[in-house]
């Protein structure tokens, strides 16, 4: 290969690299050791946040930005107890549409507490074994395959989906985002919305307390025949429909009214299920 060809090849590679840098699309990976029982705080407005379980004692953060006006700060305290991952606009910079997008992929060891806060970025937590606290204004929130953990979710309009969560302490507060639960069980499952619909498919197992409360959203619960529940449903102005076989309770804490409330038990009534709506419809049916 002569000198001219070699020079041309090097020049082309350098030009490609410069073009890539100018385009602002940058990908970076950072690894940080974290102490057992530590916490990872993630704040990212737009783009996406994916959290999943990893081995070892390192938090691995891979981020992709589309603009050089955005910076991703990754800091860790001296005792390695807290990792902060925050995206922000560089001082003096103005963003155009889509420039604030940052895609974060975070691998977290077992037993670490993770908090994620976004504006429009969807959040996905998958296969994680630790406490999580997630909040998003409009980005979809998905949590699946989580066990023995506290899961706290807050949403303004973001739709929330929880799937395959066992032995969980689950609390979801959503203003108008719909909340869907599939095979979610544990000692405590508390869902509250203002106008968002609540949909539950599962067996309400674990002898826990399940409480679904909404102002004007609809509540739809689908249970298998093997579900052992002590169930009560009340709607002030909405309708209440029961298509699930229940035994009438001999003693109730409120007066039932056909079409507005019902109560009963299935099998031994291990889990307590309370469905409350102000003006929304409540329906319970068999799988």
């Amino acid at each position: 290969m002569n000198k001219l060809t070699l020079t041309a090849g090097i020049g082309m590679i350098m030009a490609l690299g410069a073009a890539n840098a100018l385009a602002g699309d940058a990908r970076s990976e950072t690894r940080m050791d974290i102490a057992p029982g530590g916490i990872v705080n993630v704040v990212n407005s737009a783009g996406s946040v994916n959290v999943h379980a990893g081995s070892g004692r390192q938090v691995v953060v891979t981020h992709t930005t589309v603009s050089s006006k955005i910076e991703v700060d990754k800091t860790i305290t001296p005792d390695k107890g807290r990792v902060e991952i925050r995206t922000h606009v560089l001082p003096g910079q103005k963003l155009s549409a889509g420039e604030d997008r940052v895609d974060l992929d975070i691998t977290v060891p077992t037993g670490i507490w993770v908090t994620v806060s976004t504006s429009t970025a969807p959040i996905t937590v998958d296969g994680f074994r630790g406490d999580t606290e997630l909040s998003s204004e409009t980005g979809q929130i998905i949590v699946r395959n989580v066990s023995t953990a506290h899961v706290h979710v807050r949403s303004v309009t973001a739709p929330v989906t929880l799937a395959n969560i066992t032995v969980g302490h689950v609390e979801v507060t959503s203003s108008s985002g719909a909340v869907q639960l599939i095979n979610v069980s544990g000692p405590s499952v508390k869902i509250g919305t203002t106008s968002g619909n609540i949909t539950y498919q599962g067996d309400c197992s674990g002898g826990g307390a399940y409480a679904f409360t909404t102002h004007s959203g609809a509540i739809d619960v689908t249970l298998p025949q093997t579900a052992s529940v002590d169930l009560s449903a009340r709607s002030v102005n909405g309708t209440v429909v029961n298509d699930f076989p229940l035994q009438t309770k001999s003693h109730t804490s409120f007066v039932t009214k056909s079409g507005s409330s019902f109560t009963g038990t299935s099998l031994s009534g291990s889990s307590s299920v309370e469905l409350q709506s102000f003006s929304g419809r409540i329906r319970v049916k068999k799988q």
Partner: protein
Amino acid sequence: MNCQQFHEVLPFIIENGGNGEEEGHLRTCPACAELVQDLKYIATQAKLLLPMHDPSPRVWTGIEQSLHHQGLIQEGRTSLLGHITTIPMPAKSWTPLGWAMTVAAMVLFAAVLINYRPHLFPAQSSAQNMSAQPVPLEGEDQRLMSQVSQQAPDVRRAYEDNLREVNSYITDAQQAVDQDPQDAAARGHLLEAHEQKEMLYQMATARSLP
């Protein structure tokens, strides 16, 4: 010629037709062409409306005779010639018994209204359904919205709508608690409503990017 100019001369076009420029605009503008077509149709149909005329007295006489013959009207109400005859009726007056019964009914009705207490929640309208117009936010809610709009106008609408809904929730729940303070479900709704509002405030004031 644009549509605005065309609309200014539209009445003359309906009456007398258009000139070359106006006809040319009609050929190129489907909206104005359809409008002219509709107006011409209305003008044509309006000419077909005929003035109403009252039937002659013989018609009314014939109708009365027919009704009388079928027994649908009583003899004496009208004469065969169609004249209306006034039959004097005894003047109606309230007897003392009638007055007593009326007063008793009013007292009973008032007693029912005052003492009626539903044992469940009353079938009250939800506050959010009582008015089609969005209720303006006030006080702290308005200050919160002004802060959000400075940071992100695009999410302001989401917070505004949800604040109104949660305020309706609080109103409804508070009414239920006021009517029956012992109702645990009502208290639960009120607590949940305030937690919803607290969440909105926390999220609005802790937004990430400026």
